[in-house]
């Protein structure tokens, strides 16, 4: 069994998650949501997972948190193998890993008051005596800058940003070490997003939290993540630290994604790779293209790309790419880069 490095809090090893959706003459049909993924998260950092639909980023998040059990491969957390659904996990593990979902309107029970919503994790994971319950909840609300009167409110009477703050407070209630954030601000307005993101970053420093941050919004990712992994159809294409990711993107899909982002300043325009413009439809995770799944849309496609799936290679220190352009020349017959 693989071991964690001494500053790694989470590690995924050849993680696969397939969903069976039926069968045809050749056998069962699977959605290959996550198809052999390797990554690790270090203590205190924010690992960003970026991708479009079908990339598998949400599936990874849900597997880490226990909504799904892996089809194969391992997920290690603090020297424990956590590759199983939440029902089978010990309570102490559930305390450590929490999740904030994308849409706060559906992640908070509309028929419960904020007080009831927060009391569940407090009751389960902390030894707070009944007398101090309300105090503890007000403390939690203060951490996310919400007034204490909100305890008696229902989610429907507070705004989207505030609902998300409640969801964050709920995640904090159990004193977790790792928080998975699945598109936490995608459903919010820009002016509110800024507030929520700032609060998340402050909380991270204050409480020494580690984040797995998932979003499709590259501009947001730029300002939030310390390292970024980009995914396409269930596989990771490139991993790099944030600055490098945007200044020297290697994978053609990374370049395509960055060039598709609508921006508001000239400075940002200059950052966008001009040569790779978005074409084609996103492939299907049920029947992904052969070889490298991105090849039908890739402007740098070579013959080998439709036959062989490339391996992940460390091109520069801490900068890995999965692309034949960077494979060893004797393997591909190309000049590489």
């Amino acid at each position, binding site marked *: 069994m693989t071991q964690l490095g001494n500053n790694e809090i989470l590690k995924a090893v050849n993680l696969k998650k397939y969903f069976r959706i039926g069968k045809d003459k050749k056998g069962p049909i699977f959605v290959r949501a996550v198809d052999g993924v390797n990554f690790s998260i270090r203590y205190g950092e924010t690992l960003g997972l970026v991708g*479009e*639909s079908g990339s598998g980023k949400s599936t990874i998040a849900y597997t880490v948190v226990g909504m799904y059990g892996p089809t194969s491969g391992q997920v290690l957390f603090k020297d424990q193998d956590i590759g199983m659904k939440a029902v089978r996990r010990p309570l102490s593990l559930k305390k450590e890993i929490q999740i904030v979902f994308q849409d706060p309107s559906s992640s908070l029970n509309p028929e419960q008051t904020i007080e009831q919503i927060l009391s569940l994790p407090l009751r389960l994971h902390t030894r707070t005596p009944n007398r101090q319950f309300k105090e503890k909840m007000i403390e939690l609300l203060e951490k996310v800058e919400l007034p204490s009167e909100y305890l008696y409110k229902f989610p429907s009477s507070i*705004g*989207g*940003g505030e609902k998300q703050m409640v969801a964050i407070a709920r995640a904090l209630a159990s004193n977790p070490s790792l928080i998975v954030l699945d598109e936490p601000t995608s459903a919010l*307005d*820009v*002016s*509110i*997003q*800024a*507030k929520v*993101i*700032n609060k998340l970053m402050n909380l991270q420093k204050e409480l020494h939290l580690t984040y797995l941050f998932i979003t*499709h*919004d*590259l*501009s*947001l990712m*730029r*300002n*939030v993540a310390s390292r970024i992994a980009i995914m396409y159809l269930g596989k990771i294409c490139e991993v790099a630290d*944030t*600055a490098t990711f*945007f200044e020297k993107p290697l994978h053609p899909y990374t370049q*395509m*994604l*960055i*060039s*598709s*982002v*609508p*921006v*508001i*300043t000239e*400075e*940002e325009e200059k*950052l*966008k790779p001009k040569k790779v*413009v*978005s*074409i084609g*439809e*996103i492939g299907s995770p049920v029947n992904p293209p052969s070889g490298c799944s991105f090849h039908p849309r890739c402007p740098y496609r070579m013959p080998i790309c439709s036959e062989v799936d490339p391996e992940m290679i460390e091109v520069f220190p801490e900068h890995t790419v999965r692309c034949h352009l960077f494979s060893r020349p004797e393997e591909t017959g190309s000049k590489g880069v």
Partner: protein
Amino acid sequence: METKENVLLDIKDLHTWYRVYGGYLKVLNGINLIVREGERVSLVGEAGCGKTTTMKSILRILPPGDFLIPKGEICYRGKDILKMNSREIQRLRSQEIAMIFQDPTAALNSVFTIGTQIGDVVKYSLALEEKRVHKEKIKMLSVKALKEVSLPDPERMLVNYPFQLSGGMRQRVCIAMAISSSRNLLIADEPGTSLDVTIQDQILRLLREIVEKKGTSIILITHSLGVAREMTDRIYVMYAGTIVETALTKDLFKNPVHPYTKGLLASVPKLSGGGLAKGIPGRIPDYLNPPQGCRFQPRCEYATPSCVETPPQLFEVEKGHLVACYLAQR
């Protein structure tokens, strides 16, 4: 050019209210907006600012019985839409103005083929002029429209059902329906927002191409300043049912004046890094009892007593650049 002739749509001091428990939601509080022939204009604002209400008011698709328009006019080529009778409205909707809705999956009827749906649009756009429309002609025009939005194999597309298409393709079909007959004005509500970024980029480029080629005017409704910047020449920034600032795109980004515009621009995360601003404190006002004066005043750090009393009117700070703020008038 300020000539009266080429003004296509002129919204004057529009107020739209919704009837609810406890009174009225006074959403729109005097909207002024002009679109000329061939212009590309965007209406930018966050959720709840009233941009969808504005669009629904133009096409008169507000929920019947539950709304009130106590003041204002929406003039299309000089005629007030709000006073049109049903025949004129029908003509307006089938020949002059077309809508492209936000969610293409919801905008298409899942039990009819693409061919039937786009055929209906074509049929009704011609029906007012021709008594009987030939099936062949409908088919030809449908295929033509699908070709214009770069859909592969348009003839086969006619027999497909929406569920067989991807999100991007559905959005293209919606665009095809909107341009299937020559229209003068397109209203696109957050096009591509429900799609992936790379697909959204393709859709926006397509829309831009079509609009340029046909010379159609377009009102683009969006919450993304980035999209507005890439797609349109003139921007209206909307907050809580009022137009707070309007300018040519380049002027707006070079020299934003209204505190809301500035706050919005600062809150948008930049691809080039630099961290996020603190956002804009507070929330949108309660439309049931909106502030008497400037609606942004409760959240504004520059607020003065006069901001509380009366709402500021649009004031020209440079040519073509208007701001509704007392700050701008000094």
